[in-house]
């Protein structure tokens, strides 16, 4: 089917192309008309030429004859009147069909002698013989008989040396239309010209005939389809070749189109790939810079420019000196540029004066590209967070080690004191034992807090909430510290409502939080001060308060107290041993219970910490809301 339709289409196109040829049928007619026109023009020119020749001839003849007659003696001209005159003889001799008449008139215009061709009436046109110059001449007249134009030549007739009259010779204007004799000549002349037209026409027709036939055939084929192809070998051959040409052209067009489509696709694919690659590189948390073998930037992600604090366009095609102000980095890159054998190198530097912003830069070779040039890949990474974490970690370690070494130091000294001269004084022994006990408690508290913090921070402690009788928990925590408070002369109050609802708590963790708040309230109190542990059962929440009449916390310190290792800045606060971990841990634990821990304090008056716990766990609320 496709080949058939292709064939049909090809044939239709061919038929269309041959249509103009069909129109040339009218060419024959046009050629005949043209040849007739040519003949007419030729005839016109011929007649014109003939007419002017005749005019010339008439004039020459007329003038010559008039002069001849003028020179003849008067007697000779008219003497033999009644006989054949010289004039009539001469005129007859002329044998010119156009010669109309010959007349001799006297000076007054009276006709002396008249010789005419048959049917000719001499026009009576008097000639004035005033001047001798006007005696010879010619004039145009009209025949009074048939109205034909007449050319008249006149000459004077002299008699005895005097002007005696005129001889007038009238010639008819020659007829333009040829006579029968000339007609045959013209016909003979016209015939070959006329014959040329059909000859050309038939020649053209003969040349066109196959095309015409082909057109008809093609049209028939177009309408009937290729099945009707007559077993005409020539036509078949032509059609085959024609189809091959058309097919080849179509194939070529298809090929070009396919190539174009492929080019567009591959172009899109390439740009997609390039775009994707760029998008990936741009999305990297690291800033990527590619240097060519000369050390100039060939590619830089937006992050690189931002990280280095320069405009992106200022980096491209520029050496590092143009976009990097850090001498350390420049030196690092220059070193790598000089010695590529450094496989991959890394440098960490401060990006700003404060030294807070740390950036790590690493450089590694890029494999040789097609061009054979070797580039380098420079990757910048903001390591501020890691740096700060690391610093915080080492600060934490330093702090912890100091906090642990201090009681150890005390323990070592007191124990040595007891060993060396323990018996020396009862008072000293008691003091040493008390101090050792205190320091051990302090260390144990510190170690407990540290372990709990570490577990909380690393997620090693999974909070396990069980419905807990809050009253029992608070009671227990209170009793645990009551003795230590009394020892310090501090009033210790517990104000709990008769009924406290059970709350979903991690008992062990919550106990640590309450314990830390209570022991702080005791520690940062003053002699004869008081500590109150109270609870209120509200509509939505339970509020637990730990109130003291202690040294208080300044507003500036209040903002810091929940931070790790934060200690009050007052001298009263510094006088009390502490690690700055208790409140931090308490806050972490309350947060884990989706509760809030807030502080309200006035320096020198006292402090109140409030724990607010939602009665309905937040998760349940969220589910209900949903």
């Amino acid at each position: 089917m496709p080949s058939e339709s292709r064939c049909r289409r090809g044939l239709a196109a061919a038929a269309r192309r041959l249509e103009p040829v069909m129109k040339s049928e009218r060419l024959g007619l046009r050629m005949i008309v043209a040849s007739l026109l040519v003949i007419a023009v030729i005839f016109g020119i011929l007649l014109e030429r003939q007419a002017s020749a005749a005019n010339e001839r008439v004039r020459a003849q007329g003038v010559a004859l008039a002069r001849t007659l003028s020179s003849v003696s008067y007697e000779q001209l008219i003497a033999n009147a009644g006989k054949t005159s010289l004039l009539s003889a001469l005129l007859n001799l002329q044998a010119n069909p156009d010669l109309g008449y010959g007349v001799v008139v006297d000076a007054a215009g009276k006709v002396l002698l008249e010789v005419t061709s048959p049917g000719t009436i001499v026009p009576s046109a008097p000639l004035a013989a005033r001047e001798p110059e006007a005696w010879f001449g010619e004039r145009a007249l009209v025949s009074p008989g048939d109205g034909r134009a007449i050319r008249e030549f006149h000459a004077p007739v002299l008699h005895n040396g005097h002007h005696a009259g005129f001889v007038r010779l009238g010639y008819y204007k020659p007829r333009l239309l040829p006579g029968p004799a000339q007609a045959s000549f013209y016909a003979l002349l016209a015939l070959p010209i006329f014959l040329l037209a059909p000859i050309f026409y038939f020649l053209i027709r003969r040349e066109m005939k196959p095309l015409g036939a082909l057109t008809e055939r093609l049209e028939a084929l177009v309408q009937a389809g290729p099945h009707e192809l007559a077993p005409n070998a020539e036509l078949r051959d032509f059609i085959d070749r024609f189809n091959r040409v058309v097919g080849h052209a179509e194939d070529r067009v298809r090929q070009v189109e396919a190539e174009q489509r492929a080019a567009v696709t591959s172009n899109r694919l390439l740009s997609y790939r390039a775009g994707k690659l760029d998008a990936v590189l741009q999305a990297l948390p690291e800033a990527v810079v590619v240097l060519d073998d000369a050390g100039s930037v060939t590619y830089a992600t937006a992050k690189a420019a931002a990280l280095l604090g320069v405009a992106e366009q200022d980096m491209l095609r520029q050496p590092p000196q143009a976009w990097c102000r850090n001498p350390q980095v420049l030196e690092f890159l220059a070193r790598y540029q000089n010695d590529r054998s450094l496989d991959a190198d890394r440098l960490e530097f401060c990006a700003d004066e404060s030294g807070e912003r740390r950036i790590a830069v690493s450089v590694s070779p890029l494999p040789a590209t097609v061009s054979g040039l070797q580039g380098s890949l420079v990757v910048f990474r903001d390591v501020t967070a890691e740096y700060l974490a690391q610093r915080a970690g080492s600060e934490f370690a330093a702090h912890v080690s100091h906090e642990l070494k201090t009681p150890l130091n005390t323990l070592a000294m007191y124990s040595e004191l007891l060993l060396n001269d323990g018996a020396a004084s009862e008072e000293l022994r008691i003091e040493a034992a008390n101090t050792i006990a205190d320091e051990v408690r302090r260390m144990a508290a510190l170690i407990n807090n540290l372990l709990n913090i570490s577990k909380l921070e690393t997620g090693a402690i999974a909070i396990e909430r069980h419905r807990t009788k809050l009253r029992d928990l608070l009671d227990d925590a209170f009793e645990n510290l009551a003795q230590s408070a009394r020892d310090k002369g501090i009033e210790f109050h517990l104000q709990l409502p008769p009924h406290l609802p059970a709350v979903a708590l991690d008992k062990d963790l919550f106990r640590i939080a309450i314990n830390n708040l209570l022991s702080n309230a005791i520690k940062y109190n003053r002699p004869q001060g008081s500590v109150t542990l109270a609870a209120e059962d509200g509509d939505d929440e339970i509020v637990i308060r730990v109130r003291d009449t202690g040294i208080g916390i300044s507003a500036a310190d209040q903002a810091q107290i929940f931070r790790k290792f934060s200690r009050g800045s007052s001298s009263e606060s510094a006088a009390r041993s502490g690690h700055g971990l208790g409140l931090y841990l308490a806050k972490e634990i309350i947060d884990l219970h989706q509760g809030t821990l807030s502080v309200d304090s006035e320096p020198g008056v006292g402090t109140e910490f409030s724990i607010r716990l939602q009665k309905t766990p937040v998760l349940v609320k969220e589910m209900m809301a949903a």
Partner: protein
Amino acid sequence: MKRILIVDDQPHVIRVLRLCLERDGYTVASASDGTEALSLIRAGAPDVLITDIQMAPMSGRELCQALHLEFPKREFLTLVMTSMTAREERDWVRQLPATEFVEKPLSPRALLERLARHFSTLSEESARG
């Protein structure tokens, strides 16, 4: 009577050292941080200064550096209490003249021996000189 100045923010340390040193016949003065110590030294230089490092507001390191600037020709020995692991601290201690360190946790007996050795060396030198 040799005068010893103890600088530490831990009252227990001062308490025990004072006990031990006084029993050995030294006169003991104490300060809880560098600032306090510096004003005491300005009032009268001790024979030996024993100081902790981690104190506020003025640390032991700041105290030693201030002393070095203010009293470059001081004759008293400075003993800085550091632990073996604090390498950074030991480095700056080594760079200061007449400044040495004593190990933490502190042994009062070792400290007494050290002081005795120091003073005997001093008396030998002065006897020779």
